[in-house]
């Protein structure tokens, strides 16, 4: 039962990650972000996406990686999942590749410092390239935000 699917490739701290293409609405260049107070640190705020206000989170800080200054290459990937629309700030996003479910293996406990529960698998492709596939529903899990809110309060 091997199925083909396309993923958007983006980078975070020199690792390559993938999100299924049908979950991605658009990819935007960095725009000014309005800070929203009383939110977890990884929530950078909200942006104006052609008249719609969309929250954005910094994926580096969501995964507990070292935060970095935005660069020319920084992108905001707008994803839609669990009836939510959220922007991910990533280091760069510049590729779409075809994958096959056969190429995907279960993720190890920790990959590049990211807990396995945020990942849905690891795909090997090309010449020795590793692509880490995100488990979107877990990344967008709100219960964690609520816990953080309660912790903060």
């Amino acid at each position: 039962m091997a199925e083909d699917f396309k993923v958007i490739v983006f980078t975070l701290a020199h690792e390559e990650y993938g999100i299924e293409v049908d979950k991605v609405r658009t990819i935007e260049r960095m725009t000014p972000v309005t800070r929203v107070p009383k939110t977890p640190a990884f929530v950078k705020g909200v942006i104006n996406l052609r008249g719609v206000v969309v929250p954005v989170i910094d994926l580096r800080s969501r995964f507990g990686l070292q935060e970095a200054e935005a660069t020319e290459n920084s992108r905001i990937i707008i994803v839609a999942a669990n009836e939510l629309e959220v922007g991910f700030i990533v280091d760069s996003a510049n590729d779409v590749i075809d994958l096959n479910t056969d190429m995907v293996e279960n993720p190890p406990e920790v990959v590049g410092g990211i807990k396995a529960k945020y990942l849905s698998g690891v795909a090997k492709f090309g010449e020795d390239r590793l692509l880490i596939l995100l488990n979107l529903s877990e990344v967008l899990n709100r219960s964690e935000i609520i816990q953080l809110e309660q912790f903060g309060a």
Partner: protein
Amino acid sequence: MEMNQYLSIFIDEANEHLQSLNENMLRLEQQPEDISIVQIIFRSAHTLKGMSASMGFEDLASLTHEMENVLDLVRNDKLKMNGHIFDTLFKCLDSLEGMVQDVVAGGTGSGDVKELVSQLKQIVKGEPAAPAAPGQPAAAAASSELALVAAHMLLDQYQLSVLRQSIENGSPAFHIEVTIREDCLLKGVRAYMVFDALERNGELVKSHPSVQEIEQEQFGHQFSVYYISRIPQQELQDTLDRISELESVMIIPLDVESLNELDASRSAEQQVQEASQQVAAATATAAPPAASAKSDKPPASEAPARAPTSAPVANKTIRVDIERLDSLMNLFSELLIDRVRLEQLASEVRRNDLTETVEHMARVSTDLQNIVLKLRMVPVDSVFNRFPRMVRDLAKSLGKKLDLVITGAETELDRTVIDEIGDPLVHLIRNSVDHGVETIEGRLEAGKPETGVVQLRAFHSGNHVFIEIEDDGRGINQPKVLDIAVKKGIVSPDEAKKLSDDEINMLLFAPGFSTADKISDISGRGVGLDVVKSKIESLGGVVSVTSRAGQGSKWSIQLPLTLSIITAMLVKLGSEKFAIPLSSIVETGIVKRSAIRELHGSKVTEYRKSIIPVLSLADVLDSPDYSDREETETEMLVIRKGEKLAAVLVDELIGQSEIVLKTLGKYLTNLDVISGATILGDGQVALIVDPNALIK
């Protein structure tokens, strides 16, 4: 013929007619003598019959046809309404409603109407299936005895006393009925001759129709007058008989006794009028205080004036798909953002004709905005109007006596909220009727009047609309609530001891809670109040309950107007901009740092001779690059929440602006202080501060 395209129109109109039938039947029950209401009911039933027949809904048509027969007899005074007829007609309405619902659900609109039809036929034949209610209202008895006293011929206090005095002084007073021959060509002239003869020999007290109407020939072939004569009856009869083309002249002498009778029926009529006023207040179209003030005046002169206000006004309307309104709203929001941007550009460019054009566009778009917003607003009446009937039926089935008093039905709410608020309200009202108001015996024991009162109120306050349901029943039994909550594991016994009264009341909204001693089919299956709560919260509202044991409870729902466009004050905190709804702002000003004092660890300042708390918006919002601490003078906003005031310190006031409300999306929720966001003219997102959350 393809009927589908007409089906939605049929359903809309059928529902409207059913609603009008229900309302008017309730009104008629209060004032069974008012033939004009019967006329309205008859017309509605007639239209409904025609519509159903042409759409091929035979059962609907046949039932309405029989109803029409009964109503026809009533409006022609051949049949008196009684409890049995009312009940039968109400059952018919229910059955009609069922059939229309069936049509809505895609069914054939058929229903078993045989029994109702035969009941109606019996009524028409004059064979009451049940004995007619013996206790006819006083008004009915009085006016049927004295046949000549139709409602329109009632005399007011002044006219009565004139007649009484003249009888006491020995001049005879008469009630004269004149009938003109059918073939008379100039009946106005004949009538004029009668009046002329009368006026030469005495004084007219009252005439029906009025002299003016008669002169314009606006009458049938009959008119009647109250008259004080200077000549004896026989001479008067001769004088009038000499006028040709008159069919008959009936002169009935009046004495003090018959005047007293007239007076009695007048006050009976007044009672009916007052009853009708209560109904009017209940169906509430007019402002209630004005209506109650009117009841002091003699009603005779008012009866015709009031009738039109309660009659449905035929508006010229078209039906529009709500989705089109939504997209109109969205497009307008886009336009508004561009307008703000243009205004900003124009102020930078500083060219006169550009500025003028932009200003003109701003004015036009403000008008447009008002219209677009108004389009979506619907009076809560469209939800409230089904409750009088519901409460009547509930009260009957529970054997309770109940008045539902509706006020503020004209309060407007956004259409989307209106659509959703119906079910929670039904639930709360049922709850009040079933659990709140006691049985008749229970009320008498508690020393309360037999008839319980459930008040349904709607009113605006600030940016919110409040809907309150208040009953004068037994109130919430708090020990019992606690008991059950502990039993069901909603709270632990230890927690239970610490709860305040309000917190105990809120336990009612916990999932899986029911305090009813027995489960009735009306309310109290334990699924409910929690659903009500979550529904209201999903609309951005808040529900709460207050109660006093033995005196009743009050359920209060606070709903946002959900105006998608509001006027707000834009403020700056360092590099960040925030919007604060103008509706909560009382005043803006500057406060000296030295005027801010510490009181029990919290900051306060003096404002108009009272002490109000001071909040630093920068602290509340964790502003990264601004703090008011170092300033000697700080700009402030005074905001209000209900009775409470507070001063909010900000860096700089930018000015007021129309802003389009945007949600922050589902990802960011539970942000107390931030109620939403808006997009400013420069494309930046600014957050909207919720002033209600600032005042604790």
